[in-house]
C-alpha cells in the first residue's frame, strides 16, 4: 500500500496550507477542497483513505456533508470544529465521524488522531490480542493479564476495557459507551459510566488520580491511549 491519501475540506486557505505542509512532511498525500460540494465530489471520485472535514463550511452545514458522505462511504472522517462546542462534536461523532479536533490544535494531536483513525480502518475484525503497557487483553478468552498475571475484572469492567482496547486512540462518546455496555435505554445514565471508569482506572492506571490510559475528553467522552506496548 502506498502513502495514505487524505482529503482536507476546509474553506480557510491558511488552515489548508498548514495541513498540507504538515501532512505531506509526515508522508501523507494531500488533496483539498474549499467547499462541501467540491469535497463530496473529490471524496466520491478519488476515495481518499481519510477525510478531514471542517464543520463550518460556507455552502453547507458540515453535519449535513458528513451525513451525505456516510451514505456511501465508511472511510474515516475527522472533523474540525472551531469552538469547543461539545454538543456539536458529540452529534458529529454520533453521525459517524471517527474523531474530532478543536481549532487551534497541536500538530502532534492531529497526527495521532490520523494514525489512530487509519489504524482503526485497516484493523481486521479478527484481532484477538491487544497489548499495552504490560497489559494483555485476550478477546477470545475474555481475559486480561498484567505482566502475565490474570487480572480480576467484573463482567462490566472487562467489557468496558475490551471496548476501549478495540478502539485504541479513538474518542468514544458517553452515549456510545453507555449504549454498547449497558444498552440503548441507558444512554443518559452517565453515573454508571463515571463509576466504572473510576473502578477501571484503579485497576489499570499506575496512579488513578493521574490517568495515562483512560483519558477524559471534557463533555464528550473518553479516549483510551495504550502508550508503550
Amino acid at each position, binding site marked *: 500500500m502506498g502513502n495514505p491519501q487524505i482529503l482536507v475540506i476546509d474553506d480557510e486557505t491558511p488552515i489548508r496550507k498548514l495541513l498540507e505542509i504538515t501532512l505531506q512532511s509526515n508522508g501523507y498525500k494531500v488533496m483539498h477542497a474549499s467547499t462541501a460540494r467540491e469535497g463530496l465530489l473529490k471524496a466520491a471520485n478519488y476515495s481518499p483513505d481519510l477525510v478531514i472535514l471542517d464543520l463550518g463550511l460556507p455552502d453547507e452545514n458540515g453535519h449535513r456533508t458528513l451525513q451525505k458522505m456516510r451514505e456511501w462511504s465508511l472511510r474515516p472522517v475527522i472533523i474540525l470544529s472551531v469552538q469547543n462546542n461539545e454538543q456539536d462534536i458529540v452529534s458529529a461523532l454520533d453521525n459517524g465521524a471517527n474523531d474530532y479536533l478543536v481549532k*487551534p490544535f497541536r500538530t502532534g494531536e492531529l497526527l495521532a488522531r490520523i494514525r489512530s483513525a487509519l489504524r482503526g480502518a485497516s484493523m481486521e475484525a479478527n484481532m484477538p490480542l491487544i497489548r499495552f503497557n504490560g497489559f494483555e487483553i485476550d478477546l477470545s478468552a475474555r481475559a486480561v493479564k498484567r505482566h502475565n498475571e490474570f487480572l480480576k475484572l467484573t463482567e462490566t469492567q472487562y467489557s468496558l476495557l475490551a471496548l476501549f482496547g478495540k478502539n485504541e486512540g479513538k474518542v468514544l462518546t458517553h452515549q456510545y459507551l453507555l449504549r454498547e455496555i449497558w444498552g440503548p435505554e441507558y444512554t443518559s445514565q452517565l453515573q454508571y459510566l*463515571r*463509576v466504572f471508569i473510576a473502578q477501571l482506572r*484503579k485497576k489499570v492506571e499506575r496512579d488513578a*488520580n493521574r*490517568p495515562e490510559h483512560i483519558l*477524559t475528553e471534557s463533555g464528550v467522552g473518553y479516549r483510551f491511549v495504550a502508550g508503550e506496548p
Partner: protein
Amino acid sequence: MQEATVPFPFVTYKIGKNQQYIISILLVSLVSAICFLLSAYIGAQVVAFILLLELSIVAMFFDIFPVLLTAILSALIWDFFFLAPRYNFGVGDTEDRILLSMYFVIALINAVLSFKIRQIEKVARRKVEKAKTLKLYNTLLNSLSHEFRTPIATIIGATDNLLQEPSLLSAGDSKKLLSEISVASLRLNRQVENLLNMSRLESGFLQPKKDWCDMNELVAAIIHQLGDQLTNHTVETDINENLPLVRIDYGLMEQVLYNLVYNASLYTPENTIIRICATCPDGNLEIAVEDTGAGFPEEEIGKVFNKFYRLKHSRVAGTGLGLSIVKGFVEAHNGTIDLRNRPSGGACFVIRMPIEKLYVNKQANG
C-alpha cells in the same frame, strides 16, 4: 410601564403608574376630609395652603400626570367644599375668584417645576452612568490591547526575523524564536477563550447543563490539561476517593478549577505547593484551592473578583477576567466563592455550592 423611584430615606422602591394615580386620589381625598372635619376651626385660605403642601409632597415623588391630576382635583375640591359659597362650584366675590385662579396657577407651576427638576436629575444620573461605562470600557480596551498586542508583537517580530536571510540566525536562535511564537500564540488563545467565556456570562443565557461527575476525575483532567504549566509546582490533591458523584456542569466547573489552579501557578513562586481539596458537607459541595505563595494584599481581597480588576503591583500580565469568570460560573451553580489568606501564608479560594449527590461504590472490585 413607566415607574417612579421613591427616594425614601432608607428604602428605595418603585411604584407603578396606575398605583400613583390611585395613591394621588386617595391622598387628596384624605387630606380634604381631614380639612373638612376641621373646617369649623380653619378658614378656606389655610385649607388651600394645606392642599398645596400635600401637592408639593406628591410632586416630589410622582410623575407629572398623577401630580397634575392632584392639582386639578384639589383645586376643584377646594372650590366645591371650602370656598364660599360652599357645596357649589360657583365662586362668590372677586377676591375668591382671584384666590381660586391663583391656586390653580400655583398648583400647576408646582407640578411642572418638580417635574423639570426630576428630568434634570435623570439626565445628570445618566451622565454619571455613561462616564462609568466609558471608564470600564477604557480599562477593558487598555488591558485587552496590551494583552493582545504583546503576543502579536512577539509573533510578528519573531516571524520577520525567521523570514529574513536565514544565514543571519543561528539554529539555536531560530529555535528560540520559534518557541517564543509558540508561547505567544498559546497566550493569545487563552485570552480569546477568556473573552468568549466572559461573553457567555454577559449574554445572560448561561444555563449550566448538569450531569453526574466524579470530582476526582475532574481534578485529574485539569492537572493533565495544565501539564507543563505545573512543572515548577507541587500539586497535591486531597479528595476522598469515595466522594459521592455530584451533579454539576462539567465544562463550567472545569473552567473554574482550571482558572484557579492556572492563576496559582502563575502568581506563586516556583517550588511552592498548590493544593486542591473537595468535600461534600451536608447538601453542599466544597472545593478549596490553596497555595503556599505570598497570598493577596488584604485590602484588595474584596476586589479580585471584579471584572478587569488587576492587583496593584502585579508582575504578571493579564486581563483581570479569569477570577470574574470563576465567580460567574460558580454563581451559575447557585454557589459562592470566597478568598482569604491562610494564617500560615498563601491564598485559599473556597467554593461552596448546593449540590445533588449520589453515593456509589467506586472501589475496583465493586
